[in-house]
């Protein structure tokens, strides 16, 4: 059977789309965190700068028409409290420069009384400037007292770098969790498919019942077409089985009549050539009617396997019954069928089918062994269930044909002259496998065939 033509994988596609989504989300989260961090860092720097500038502004007093500014120590030292920063300031009254760094530009805001900020480069380093204003009265009337304070960005950069590390960590963690979740989700999304696959492939070779297990809505069309396909298959199969059974049945009666006639003719005939021809004829008729019988049995087996009974069966008892039934045949060849080890062990299944299987194995043991041979049957309980070993002291299976002879209508080279159809072991195998078991053919070390039927725990 050729494997399906595979292109792509739902699970992989699902996983990849989930991962792509997670990656995009991670980048977005990272960028948002970055921009928030930048904003927060800038805002907190601006707040400190404003506080510093305001404390200078607040220290200004106008006395006697002159403006005195008493620079508070903290105004500048607080800008350097956490990280080492270069700090600049400028105090101006109107256009007149009072103190500080004359070149330091002031930040221009929309309203004169609100703090204003700007970023620029001053004395070779990036700085942030905050400017605050207050109107003071001087000799020359009201004037704006302007205080600008600037600070380098070491602290802000350090905060941002730290935050950057944190957000990278968070991003990585977020992505990792997403990967795990995606794996879980894609696995659980394809779970119903796997379940369906498992339930279909677990079935026996002849189990064509419709799938009854619940499936998600997306899979319903697939399952219903699968079910209808199986229904069609089943009808066509049973139709051909019926046809074969019908045909076999119809052949059997005329064959029996022909055989009786041939035997009568044989008894009456005195001519050796005619007798030999009649004997060959009888043998051929035996073969044909055996084939018809086995075909009927096979059809019966197929039918019963369709809805397999699950009753408790005592294997030892079943075996003893089968041996008993065989006595007429075995006694004829003086073959001793002995029940060996008989463990009391039960299996679940259809007694008629199992009986039929055993009958076929015993039939072989009697058919393919010389007169006076011995057949031993052991029923034993094993760790995994039960097994039946049927050993004989005949020539054994032809070594080169062991694999082939379990197939339909396949007979061994030692079957020449022996009546048979080549369906016996096929029936045995089908029955045992339908019970979840296994049939193994082998030859005993000391010669003779050995058929092992293994059954799982009931």
């Amino acid at each position, binding site marked *: 059977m050729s494997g399906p033509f595979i292109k792509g994988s739902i699970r992989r596609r699902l996983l990849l789309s989930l991962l792509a989504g997670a990656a995009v989300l991670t980048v977005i989260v990272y960028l948002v965190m970055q921009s928030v961090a930048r904003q927060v860092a800038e805002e907190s720097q601006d707040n400190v700068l404003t506080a510093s500038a305001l404390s200078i502004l607040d220290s200004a007093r106008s006395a006697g028409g002159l403006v005195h500014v008493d620079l508070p120590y903290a105004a*500048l*030292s607080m800008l350097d409290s956490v990280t080492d920063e*270069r700090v600049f300031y400028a105090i101006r009254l109107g256009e007149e420069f009072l*103190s500080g760094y004359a070149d330091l530009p002031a930040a221009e805001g929309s309203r004169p009384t609100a703090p204003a900020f700007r970023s620029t480069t001053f004395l070779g380093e990036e700085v942030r400037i905050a400017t605050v204003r207050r109107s003071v009265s001087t000799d020359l009337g009201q004037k704006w007292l302007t205080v600008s304070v600037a600070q380098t960005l070491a602290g802000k950069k350090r905060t941002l770098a730290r935050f950057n590390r944190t957000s990278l960590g968070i991003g990585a963690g977020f992505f990792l969790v997403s990967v795990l979740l995606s794996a879980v989700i894609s696995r659980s999304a394809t779970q119903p498919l796997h379940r369906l696959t498992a339930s279909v492939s677990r079935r026996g070779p002849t189990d064509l019942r419709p799938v009854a297990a619940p499936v998600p809505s997306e899979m319903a069309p697939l399952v219903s077409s699968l079910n209808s396909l199986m229904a069609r298959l089943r009808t066509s199969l049973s139709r051909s089985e019926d046809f074969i059974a019908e045909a076999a049945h119809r052949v059997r009666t005329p064959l029996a009549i022909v055989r009786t006639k041939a035997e009568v003719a044989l008894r009456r005939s005195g001519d050796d050539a005619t007798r030999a021809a009649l004997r060959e004829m009888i043998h051929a008729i035996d073969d044909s009617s055996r084939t018809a019988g086995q075909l009927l049995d096979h059809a019966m087996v197929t039918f019963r396997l369709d809805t397999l009974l699950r009753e408790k069966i005592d294997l030892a008892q079943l075996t003893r019954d089968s041996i008993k039934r065989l006595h007429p045949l075995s006694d004829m060849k003086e073959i001793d069928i002995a029940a060996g080890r008989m463990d009391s062990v039960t299996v679940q299944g259809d007694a008629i089918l199992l009986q039929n299987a055993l009958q076929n194995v015993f039939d072989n043991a009697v058919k393919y062994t010389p007169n006076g041979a011995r057949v031993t049957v052991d029923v034993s309980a094993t760790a995994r269930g039960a097994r039946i070993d049927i050993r004989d002291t005949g020539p054994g299976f032809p070594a080169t044909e062991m694999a082939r002879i379990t197939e339909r209508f396949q007979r061994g080279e030692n079957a020449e002259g022996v009546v048979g159809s080549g369906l016996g072991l096929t029936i045995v195998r089908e029955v045992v496998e339908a019970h979840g078991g296994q049939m193994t053919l082998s030859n005993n070390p000391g010669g003779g065939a050995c058929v092992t039927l293994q059954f799982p725990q009931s």
Partner: protein
Amino acid sequence: MRHPAISPVLTIAFAVCATWIAGTLHAFEIEDHARFGDPGAAREIRIISTADITFFEPMIAAFLSANPEVTVDYTVASSTELSGAVTNAANQFDVVISSAMDLQTKLANDGRAMRHQSDVTEMLPDWAVWNDMLFAFTQEPATIILSKTALGALPVPQSRHDLINLLRQHPDRFRGKVGTYDIRQSGLGYLFATQDTRASETYWRLTEVMGRLGARLYCCSSEMIDAVKSGELLIAYNVLGSYAANRSDRDEFAIVLPTDFTTVMLRTAMIPENAPAPDLAAAFVDHLLQMAHGPQARPLTHTDINLTQLGTALNRIRIGPGLLVFLDQLKRRAFLAEWENAIEQN
């Protein structure tokens, strides 16, 4: 001494007194100048410093023994002259060393310092480094110096409070016999005074008391110590303890680290941004810091001055832009006016 004295052959020290203006230097007043090491050496490192040659010689000797292919050019100037000289881009130095923390901070803040990072600077305590530009390598306390003989049976004051009480109880004895920095002249005196006012109001009370007793004002710590030694002064306030302790006649006066708080100045080094030999400068600064903070650190000042015993009273001046506040011209004018008011009462 761990380091051998510099051999006379290698040392060519010019003791140039008073004013000496080098052709290559843009006009500023220098106090002393010397060259160390092999005069024919291929490379030269130029140092400008406020510290005396004798104070610094061991450092240079140790540096030269590790770097024999270098000559050291060492110029001494006052803190104000030094600051002016470094501000003028025409002057090129590799290392600038000063006790005026505020002026050094201003130089660095104004962008005149080069950033320097190395294994050595990594190990520095936080207070000893600012912005990778300024590096502290000494801790020198402001102390009270008293004449042991003249004090007689009076107890040695241990804090400013004690000192105020002592002066108030014996005004006649101390009139005209107390001295301190003239902070209008001395940058270090100004730094100590401004830091004192930050720490406590006691400074103003003490200044007023000293003013009422007709305090004498000095330019420098060494003059105050000489005055105490000669009997001209009984008490000198805010004297650089390292100078007092390093003198050979140290036993003739008492050195007091005030227990209420002791202001501690840090001598700092920086590499100017226009240093001609920044690699040598970095090596020298690392060498300096290694000797001051490294595992085999050797205190540059006398071991008598044990700062660890101070505990919480240790008021180490913090390097940083706070120091710019008192350099502000408005602030300085106002501070000096208030100080003059307090100190000049007769």
